[in-house]
C-alpha cells in the first residue's frame, strides 16, 4: 500500500485516526519519512495535527511548557530557553534541526534522543490527551504509547542544565553518548540534589541513579566525584552500533561524566 498523509486540525481527531492499523504520527518526519524511504513498509498512513497548541512555548517564571511540534532550531533560538539551547543544538545539522521536533525526539532510538536526555535530567512531565506522566515512566513504556504527545513541561533549574554530547565527527556527529545533569549545591558547595541522564547507554535515555546517589553530600572536586564516576556505568546496557561498541561507551562514560561535573 502506498504511503499517504492525513492532516487533522485537532489532536482529538488525529488521535482517533491513529487507532487504525498501519498508522503513525508524523512529527518533523526525520525518522518516519526516512524509514519509509529506506523501505519500511509497515507504515502506510501518516497522521499529523496542525493544532496550534502543539507549536506553543509558554514560559511563566521558571515554569516552561513546550509544544511537541516545536523544532530543535526553534528551541535553540528562543530567548527564554537558553538553558536548553546546547542540548537542542546537539541534534543533527542545521537542516535536521529545522525539522526535528521535541515529540519525535522522545521516541528516537539510540544513538538518537539527545534532547530527551536533557528533558530526562529536568524531570519533565510528558502530556498526552490521556493526562500527564513523569518522563521516566513515559520513556519506559514509550513503545506502547499510541497517543499524540502534546507538550512537555518542566521547571528551569536554578543552577542551570549541564549538557555534553560526545561525537566523533565535529561539529555534527551522531552520539557516542550524551549526558545531562541538573545539580543543586548547598552553601558549603556539597551536592544536595543530583539528576543525571545518559544517552546511548541503553536503547533509550536513562538515569544514572547510582552516580546521582554517590554525589550527594560530595563536593564537585576530582576527589569528591570519584565515587560517582566509579558507579557511573551501573545498570547501563549501551548500544553497539557503527559509532561505538557497548564496551567503548562504558569505558568512556566516567571520563566524560567527570568532565561535565568539573566544568
Amino acid at each position: 500500500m502506498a504511503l499517504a498523509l492525513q492532516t487533522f486540525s485537532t489532536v482529538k481527531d488525529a488521535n482517533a485516526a491513529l487507532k487504525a492499523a498501519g498508522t503513525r504520527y508524523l512529527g518533523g518526519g526525520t525518522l518516519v519519512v526516512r524509514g519509509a524511504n529506506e523501505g519500511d513498509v509497515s507504515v502506510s498512513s501518516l497522521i499529523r495535527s496542525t493544532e496550534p497548541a502543539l507549536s506553543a512555548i509558554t514560559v511563566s517564571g521558571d515554569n516552561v511548557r513546550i509544544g511537541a511540534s516545536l523544532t530543535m532550531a526553534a528551541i535553540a533560538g528562543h530567548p527564554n530557553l537558553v538553558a536548553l539551547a546546547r542540548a537542542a543544538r546537539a541534534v543533527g545539522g542545521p537542516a535536521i534541526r529545522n525539522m526535528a521536533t521535541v515529540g519525535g525526539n522522545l521516541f528516537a532510538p539510540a544513538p538518537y534522543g539527545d534532547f530527551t536526555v536533557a528533558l530526562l535530567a529536568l524531570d519533565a512531565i510528558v502530556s498526552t490527551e490521556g493526562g500527564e506522566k513523569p518522563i521516566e515512566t513515559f520513556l519506559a513504556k514509550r513503545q506502547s504509547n499510541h497517543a499524540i504527545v502534546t507538550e512537555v513541561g518542566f521547571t528551569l533549574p536554578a543552577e542551570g542544565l549541564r549538557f555534553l554530547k560526545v561525537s566523533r565527527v565535529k561539529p555534527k556527529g551522531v552520539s557516542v553518548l550524551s549526558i545531562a545533569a541538573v545539580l543543586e549545591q548547598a552553601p558549603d558547595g556539597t551536592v544536595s540534589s543530583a539528576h543525571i541522564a545518559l544517552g546511548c547507554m541503553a536503547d533509550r535515555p536513562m538515569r544514572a541513579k547510582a552516580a546521582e546517589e554517590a554525589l550527594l553530600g560530595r563536593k564537585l572536586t576530582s576527589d569528591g566525584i570519584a565515587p560517582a564516576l566509579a558507579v557511573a556505568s551501573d545498570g547501563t546496557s549501551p548500544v553497539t552500533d557503527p559509532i561505538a561498541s557497548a564496551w567503548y561507551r562504558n569505558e568512556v562514560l566516567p571520563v566524560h561524566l567527570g568532565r561535565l561535573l568539573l566544568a
Partner: protein
Amino acid sequence: MAKIPVQFTLNGAEKAEFIDSGTTLLHALRDKIGDTSPKGGCHQGTCGACSVIIDGELRLSCLTLAETCNGAAITTTSGLSQGGVLHPLQRAFLDAFATQCGFCTPGMIMAAKVLLDHTPDPSRDEVVEALSGNICRCTGYEPIIQAVLTAARSNSQNAA
C-alpha cells in the same frame, strides 16, 4: 489512488501539481516539476544533497512531504542565477574549485545561502557549522569553506 493538489512558489514562480499523497518534496521537484537541482544522495537525511530553502529555512527535501509545503516559498540552486548572471556563491564555488563531481554542490550552495542570508559576515567556524549537515566526498571541504567566505566578502564589498 486519487491525486492531491499542491501549490507553492518555486524560485518565485507559482507551481501547482497533482501528486500522490506521501510523495516527498524531492521527488515532486525532480520528477513532477522538473527541477533536478536538488539531488538524492541518501534519502535518509544524512548527505544534504537534497537541501532546499523553504520559507527562509534550510530543509531536507527527501524527508519533507510535498503536501506539507502548500503555500510555501521554495528556493533551489537552479533559481539562484538571474538572467545568466551567477549568484556570488556560485561564482565563488566556481573560482575556488569548490566543486569536483558536483553532486553535493547544489545542496552546499543552499546551506551556504541560508547562512549568508542570516549572517552576512560569518566566521570560519560559523561556515563549518552551517555546512555540517552536507557531505562532500570529493573536495575535502576546504575549498568549499573558502568559497563561502569569499562570497561573504564579495557580498559585503558590493553592499559597501
